[in-house]
């Protein structure tokens, strides 16, 4: 799936993350399996930004959390820089944490309210031994804060003294301060107001361009994804249903789900053909057999109800996990 002969920075194959749910919530009882991520594969080239979009519960955040080892993978592999990292022990993985960083959604929750900005930012520097002296650490913090558009003087303050946008900048600073190779941004701007969101998006885009970091940009907002990503993967109930370069995906979506998604977004400029009412996604704890999208799919046939579709290469880097992919090309909106 690589776009060139070069080895990708991250190669994910058949990634599975399953959770056991205790049903009946309060007390023991029967256990249910939730297949949050169920066989996800993709490559991420150095310097590339890959967007993962999907609705809530599709498993997009779990992909990010599994790749940062916040969740344990149930199966599959992930090679980072040529090295399989999911099977590493937590201790052996720790040095890799410097290279794989994460930006979290909620700027209010992702900063420890009891620590000053300096303490928060100094921690990864100290842990990974990037600077050893107090002055060195402070200088690095100051540099990074400037980089994300904050006055270095703020480092003695606590998170509650900042607005949402500023906090997200601090979150970005925490990531940038260790100079990572891969950043996983999980809904990095969705908690922000529109005017602030634009500022932060611009910042992320600038930083990515300057430092050539690879990025996995997880979002439910197709507009945001289009703005920032090179390539987009669409997830539905734990699986990637379509991957394509940005331009292709938005102009010629191949998977019926991608088309539904695009048609559902309310537009400021009139002209959208409204989507049909196609019901709601099934629960990831009880996915339908065959193609998980078939109950909502306008073109579903018998095969969709029984057989799980595999990705089909449609050329130009577009892959679609649809039994009818390619045949509907002409109908694409």
């Amino acid at each position: 799936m690589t776009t060139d002969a070069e080895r990708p920075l991250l190669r994910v194959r058949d990634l599975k993350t399953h959770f056991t749910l205790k049903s009946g919530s309060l007390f023991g009882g029967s256990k249910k399996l939730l297949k949050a991520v169920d066989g996800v594969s993709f490559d991420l080239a150095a310097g590339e930004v890959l967007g993962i979009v999907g609705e809530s519960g599709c498993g997009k955040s779990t992909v990010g959390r599994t790749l940062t080892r916040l969740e344990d993978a149930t199966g599959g592999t992930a090679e980072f820089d040529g090295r399989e990292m999911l099977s590493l022990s937590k201790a052996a993985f720790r040095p890799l944490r410097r290279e794989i960083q994460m930006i979290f959604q909620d700027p209010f929750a992702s900063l420890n309210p009891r620590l000053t900005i300096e303490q928060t930012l100094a921690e990864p520097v100290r842990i990974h031994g990037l600077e050893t002296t107090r002055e060195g650490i402070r200088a690095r913090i100051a540099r990074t804060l400037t980089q994300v558009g904050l006055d270095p003087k703020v480092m003695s303050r606590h998170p509650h003294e900042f607005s949402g946008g500023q906090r997200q900048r601090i979150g970005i600073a925490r990531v940038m301060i260790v100079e990572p190779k891969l950043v996983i941004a999980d809904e990095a701007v969705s908690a922000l107001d529109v005017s602030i969101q634009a500022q932060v998006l611009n910042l992320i885009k600038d930083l990515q361009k300057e430092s050539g970091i690879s990025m996995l940009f997880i979002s439910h907002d197709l507009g945001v994804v289009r703005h920032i990503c090179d390539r987009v993967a669409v997830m539905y109930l734990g699986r990637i249903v379509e991957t394509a370069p940005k331009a292709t995906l938005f102009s010629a979506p191949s998977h019926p789900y991608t088309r539904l998604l695009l048609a559902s977004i309310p537009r400021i400029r009139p002209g959208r053909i409204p989507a049909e009412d196609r019901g709601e996604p099934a629960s990831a704890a009880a996915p339908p057999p065959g193609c998980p999208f078939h109950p909502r799919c306008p073109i579903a046939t018998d095969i969709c109800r029984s057989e799980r579709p595999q990705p089909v290469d449609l050329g130009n880097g577009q892959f679609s996990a649809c039994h009818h992919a390619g045949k509907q090309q002409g109908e694409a909106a």
Partner: protein
Amino acid sequence: MTPNATIQWFATGRRIFRGRWLATLGLAWLVLVVLAAVFAPLIVPFDPLEIDPVARLTEPGAAHFFGTDHFGRDTFSRSIYGARMAIVIGLGSVLVALLVGGLTGMISAYFTRLGAFLMRVVDVLMAFPALLLALVLMTLLERSVMNTVLVIGIVYATTTARILFGMTLKLKNEVFIDAAVCSGAGHASILFRHILPNLISPLLVQASFIFAFAQLQAAALDFLGLGLPPEVPSWGNMLSESRIYVTRAPWLLLFPGALIILSVFSMNLVGDALRDSIDPRFKNDIKGV
């Protein structure tokens, strides 16, 4: 303390007690109790242990503000020294409860497998009614200040462990903990640098309630004759010793009783005010009164 920190302390205090005149009065009373405890030797007109068979059961008056007990000991002086005991018992129990229970709860929530076992032990202990557990433990040990503090502390350690367990679980799922993990922080750092500081204010609230209830527990143990050594001038002992004089010398029951009630009430008021000022996530974890 730097002037800045002092100002911040005052600011925080103002925020917590503003508009709560009852809690403020409670705080004032507690300050008074602490002062009495600290300066007890300077305040008291008599040695609290001095026996005077001639002046037995004297009514309150100019010489003996609170009267004397059946040993002829000055009740006022004993009450003042009782403040010391109240503080020793309160702080001691809080310390034991928070150290033992707090650590158990935090560690159990963090290391889930060990936690499953530890919390089971806590469950077993919690199945014993507090006073009964304290009674049996006190009979097992000798009557001493140290043991009383230890036993009351242990009794409250169980509830503290439960509460801390719940709160740590909540914190453990916080995004900033994930962020710390992604920064490469280890277990110790996560527990003590990231989780613990967030528990300080709820712990303070829990501590204030333990402080208050420890007084009542200690008094109940004293009453049943299984608390502090009887020669120790504690409010509970004073009540326990003088309860047979309820008709003959009612002041003996009145003063220490009022002191206990006022102090427990004040501590509860302060705890309540503190609770209202903490992170709303934890508010319902700490029941208090």
